[in-house]
């Protein structure tokens, strides 16, 4: 399935874009998505870490994504 990823901070620089479409397997988990991202965009491996938020909530690696979700890549935050 094709999902749309929101990207911020350094993730946006890696994609060259704030929104990036990517094709993943059906019932793709966050762990699967992270592996897919690292294989397609090796620069993700250089990050200190990155999290995935689904519908504005942090979700763990076993969370399964759906096409309707708003999925965002959250590199290390640095507000304040």
């Amino acid at each position, binding site marked *: 399935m094709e999902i749309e990823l929101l990207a911020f*901070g350094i993730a946006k620089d890696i994609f060259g874009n704030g929104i990036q479409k990517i094709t993943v397997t059906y019932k793709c988990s966050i762990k699967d998505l992270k592996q897919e991202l690292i294989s397609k965009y090796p620069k993700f491996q*250089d990050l*200190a870490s990155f999290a995935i*938020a689904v519908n*504005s909530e942090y979700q763990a690696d076993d969370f399964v994504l759906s096409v309707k979700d708003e999925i965002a890549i959250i590199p290390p935050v640095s*507000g*304040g």
Partner: protein
Amino acid sequence: MIDIKLSPETLNLESCNVFVADPAAGAIVNFIGTVRNETKKQKVLRLEFEAYEKMALSEMKKIANQALEKFDIKKIALHHRTGVLDISEIPVIISVSSAHRKAAFLACEFIIDTLKQSVPIWKKEFLENGEYWVSATP
């Protein structure tokens, strides 16, 4: 009671303190972040803050509600700036009122510490030798 704001406009300390004022409060503690002219011995020219706005607001609200649960405080204002900020400008203001001062100090520190860990806001430093997303790489 909480007042959360994320804005490209200059933050206003007075409006935060007016919000948290309470006749039953004996203390107000403010944390005001200010843009430093230096980081790790390098000169900082300016900063840029980018936010995942919807989620940032929801995480800021969560933190404020956690603080209200954890500490004996009255009201919280938590305002964060976005966009380009020059040296000495203010990226964040936290204002907390309480009956007794200790709770307001603890809540204010809790809020800024937690904000820096979980709120999806990213800071880019403009240094003389280039631009860097803070904390992005190890």
